[in-house]
């Protein structure tokens, strides 16, 4: 990130110096806390989500060790129940979505040719809230007060009389706290992708990854309120004596399930969709052509994001609702597999027509296809109500969703990590180490989870801390446990590979893969201002297209260099016609202060220190007021002339 970079033709050395001056953040402690750079925030999301992944993964290893033998005593039932609850909750809420939002934060502005997210301070705020909410939830584990009712926390077991202690208060407050971050990030993605695209990037030239992130963000906006309502009612029930989920006082326990899954099923796609976007982003570089069927894939993304709101009852097929409603939700759940089928065959067609470059990212994409397709089959099976009733809540469903989530989300993430590591860190990874990691992860995944289909069919329910040997499940469980160790070794090698690249990797050129999207037109790692001159986009594959390349270099014009201030370009929503240049905010500590005040608020509510909570609430309001107070703007910006 030096200022001595040679300017591309068309951008003068003075312009470059001015850009560096306006955008650079001085490396200081204060700068570390106050940054609003989407790339630094994106990296932090990736690292923090990775850290929570390690914690949740270690929880799973303890569980698998406990289940290696029948009636083992590695952990107590109470400990086991907290471990599986934290494993699920953390993997879903603290790893999957934040990890993908980390990719989104780093990549979306680069891919659309912008200098930052639309709301950089909101972006920083979102990260701090995510970090604090994650620590808030994990901190409960050493105190033996972690959530202990599974990640979907059914009523009435989540109620005070059945579940005393702080466990479910941590769950309800933690998820409400985290929801602020997810919502803020989603709004930011939508506005960024609609308003900050480089001139010429009309909607039909938007990279598939960006489509996926935006569709995901819309799903979050519509799905999350149901979860928030659920958790608010849960907290009121537990702490303030309301009876939303108490049937003895006219409440309804199925209300919890309906609201939870109205959020929860879209959430599966909230996790998988951006990961599928990564697949579409990685493939062109390793097949040497664009993904087949761009409009079909966009249609798939949009239709999944809509249909996914009409399938939630397939999580409730055993609750005894009327058969008529089951037949409707069964049909919707069956149909939603079609758009995924289209995407799979579009990728396969891409591979059939292109030339495969078998590097580590492509290996993970191939592993993704194999695994995700198997998870898709069992997913379609769960749409068949009668079969669902037999295998739901057994180890068969555990197998199913690990195939979908590891196959459909973790493999693409790993492909993405290897693919964008040169861009993110400026260093190349070690190819042989990466291949070892792939084969161990792939083998470990299948050895762990494939047998679960079997012992699920053989009658083993999920969420049991132990089992007796008579039903004959022990051999298969031992296989799963050994597989989980293999998987852990593979994932450790991924971590080693990343650390090795950061420490010892050879410096990465700007475009090591000859990729097709705009992030490969920036330096590795990108300058704080991303592009010396914002591009003018002429095709769906701007980095492969000479006219776009020309616009970044010799064809750069002052209206796209914007070196007199911290500025980027706002364009129209559909066709990306330039509208005006906007001033972007400077780094600030306010997001951190606001997130800290919220942390104090939620902690005080958890511990029932209500006066402290009231003070924290005041601090929240005051910080927001200061943040939003209209600044003194220069006359020019206010439109005052003369």
């Amino acid at each position, binding site marked *: 990130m030096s200022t001595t970079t040679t300017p591309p033709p068309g951008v003068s050395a003075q312009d470059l110096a001015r850009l560096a001056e306006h955008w650079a953040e001085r490396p200081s402690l204060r700068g570390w806390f106050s940054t609003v750079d989407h790339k630094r925030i994106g990296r932090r999301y990736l690292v923090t989500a990775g850290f929570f992944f390690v914690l949740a993964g270690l929880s799973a290893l303890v569980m698998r060790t406990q289940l290696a033998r029948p009636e083992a005593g590695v952990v107590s039932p109470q400990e086991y129940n907290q471990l599986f609850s934290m494993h699920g909750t953390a993997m879903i809420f603290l790893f999957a979505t934040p990890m993908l939002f980390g990719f989104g934060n780093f990549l979306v502005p680069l891919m659309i040719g912008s200098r930052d997210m639309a709301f950089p301070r909101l972006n920083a705020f979102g990260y701090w809230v995510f970090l604090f909410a994650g620590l808030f939830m994990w901190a409960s584990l050493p105190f033996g007060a972690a959530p202990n009712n599974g990640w979907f926390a059914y009523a009435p077991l989540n109620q005070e009389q059945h579940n005393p202690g702080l466990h479910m208060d941590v769950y309800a407050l933690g998820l409400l706290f985290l929801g602020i971050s997810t919502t803020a990030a989603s709004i930011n993605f939508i506005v960024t992708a609609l308003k900050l695209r480089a001139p010429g990037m009309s909607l039909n030239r938007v990279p598939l990854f960006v489509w996926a992130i935006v569709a995901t963000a819309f799903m979050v906006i519509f799905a999350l309120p149901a979860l928030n309502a659920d958790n608010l009612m849960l907290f009121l029930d537990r702490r303030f004596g309301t009876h939303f989920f108490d049937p003895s006082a006219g409440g309804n326990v199925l209300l919890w399930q309906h609201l939870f899954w109205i959020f929860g099923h879209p959430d599966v796609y909230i996790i998988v969709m951006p990961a599928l976007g990564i697949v579409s982003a990685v493939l062109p570089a390793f097949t040497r*052509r664009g993904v087949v069927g761009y409009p079909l894939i966009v249609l798939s993304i949009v239709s999944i994001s809509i249909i996914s709101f009409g399938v939630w009852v397939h999580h409730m097929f055993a*609750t005894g609702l009327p058969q008529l409603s089951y037949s409707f939700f069964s049909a919707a759940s069956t149909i939603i597999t079609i758009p995924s089928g289209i995407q799979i065959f579009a990728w396969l067609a891409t591979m059939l*027509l292109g030339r495969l470059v078998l590097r580590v990212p492509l290996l993970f994409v191939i592993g993704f296809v194999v695994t995700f397709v198997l998870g898709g089959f*069992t997913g379609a099976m769960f749409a068949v109500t*009668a079969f669902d009733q037999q295998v739901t*809540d057994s180890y068969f469903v555990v197998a199913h969703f690990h195939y979908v989530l590891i196959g459909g989300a973790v493999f693409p993430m790993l492909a993405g990590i290897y693919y964008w590591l040169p861009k993110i860190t400026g260093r190349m990874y070690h190819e042989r180490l990466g291949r070892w990691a792939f084969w161990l992860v792939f083998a470990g995944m299948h050895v762990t989870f494939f047998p679960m289909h079997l012992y699920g069919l053989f009658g083993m329910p999920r969420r049991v801390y132990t089992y007796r040997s*008579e039903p004959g499940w022990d051999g298969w469980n031992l296989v799963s446990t050994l597989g989980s160790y293999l998987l852990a070794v593979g994932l450790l090698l991924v971590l080693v590979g990343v650390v090795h690249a950061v420490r010892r990797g050879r410096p990465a050129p700007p475009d090591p893969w000859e990729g097709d999207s705009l992030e490969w037109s920036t330096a590795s790692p990108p300058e704080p201002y991303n592009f010396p001159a914002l591009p003018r986009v002429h095709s769906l594959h701007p980095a492969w297209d000479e006219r776009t390349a020309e616009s970044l270099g010799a064809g750069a014009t002052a209206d796209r260099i914007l070196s007199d201030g911290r500025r980027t370009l706002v364009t129209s929503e559909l066709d990306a016609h330039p509208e005006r240049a906007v001033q972007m905010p400077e780094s600030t500590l306010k997001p951190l202060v606001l997130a800290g005040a919220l942390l104090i608020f939620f902690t005080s509510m958890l511990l029932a220190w209500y006066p402290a909570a009231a003070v924290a609430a005041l601090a929240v309001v005051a910080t927001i007021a200061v943040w939003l107070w209209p600044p003194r703007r220069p006359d020019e910006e206010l439109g005052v002339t003369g």
Partner: protein
Amino acid sequence: MSLPVEKTAGLTMGAARDARRRGLPRRLPVLATLSGPLLLAGCAGDAPSALNPGGAGATRVAGLWWLLFWISVAVFAEVMAVLAWALVFRRGNARVRHGQPLRFVTIAGAGLPFVILVVVYGVGLRDLAALGDGPGPDAPTVEVTGHKWWWEVRYPGASGATANEIHIPVGERVKVRLRTDDVLHSFWVPQLMPKTDLIAGETRETWLRAERPGSYRGQCAEYCGTQHAHMAFLVVAQPRTDFDAWLARLDAPAREPRTDAERRGRQAFVQGTCAACHAVRGTGAAGRVGPDLSNVGSRWSLGAGAVPNDAGHLGGWIANAQTVKPGNAMPPQPVDAAELPDLIAYLRSLE
């Protein structure tokens, strides 16, 4: 633990094979011949496997599974073939082609799956309707109540109750009425019938029909707290006459003690703390907190599948059930070392 499951495993599995032989060819002749020798069903061993069905409901779902399984195998082979083709022929110096084969993507990714899924949906609806087609109003009925963490079992017309063991007459559709005393549970007997949840504040119904006499293991399938892992039960299918005799005993007083030890044991039971929570018919003990113990001596296990039902485990359970099944409702009992053998003798005599 010597469970009836093991004793009758051959019988149970034989019944399953017969059921498959009779049930499937009518519906899916090709699949049945393919699935017969399949390793998968064989891997189950003595497990309460959904693939070794012993009754009408599970047989239907097993048929559905084999349909879904073979479709999945076929489509997976298709995808793998395409992938393998790409890996073999599209590397090295393969010339990149720039077409947009949208027809291929639409037919293979949407058209074919759509046809397959419509068929599967139709078969699924038919089977769902079959599962919903419960017994008539005059059918024998069992009332099952879920507790943390055991199953209370009652029969309308019989005064007594039993626990974690459901007796049904063979070859008849038996109505099962499900309620819960506390949180959600789920009633699952993989070899007989898919799950039905027990919903707090509501009553649910399912039905069971076993084709052959035998024992079928069931287990709670909805996470219900600390000891969700130990909430198993056994469905015992008996010929009608045996079932009637068994039900008659459930209406009669418990067996009288015969030895001195048993008599002392009963006295300790009725006068001690036991009777506060447990009932034994025909004695003063009428507690409703824990399971009715009137026939505890002949049950398949202690603690809903936690440990085998023998003298040693019974003694351990009475002295401190928390070491056996941590978190359950029974506190450690201050029983005299001298009294314990008598209590054990008495309880084991209750058959």
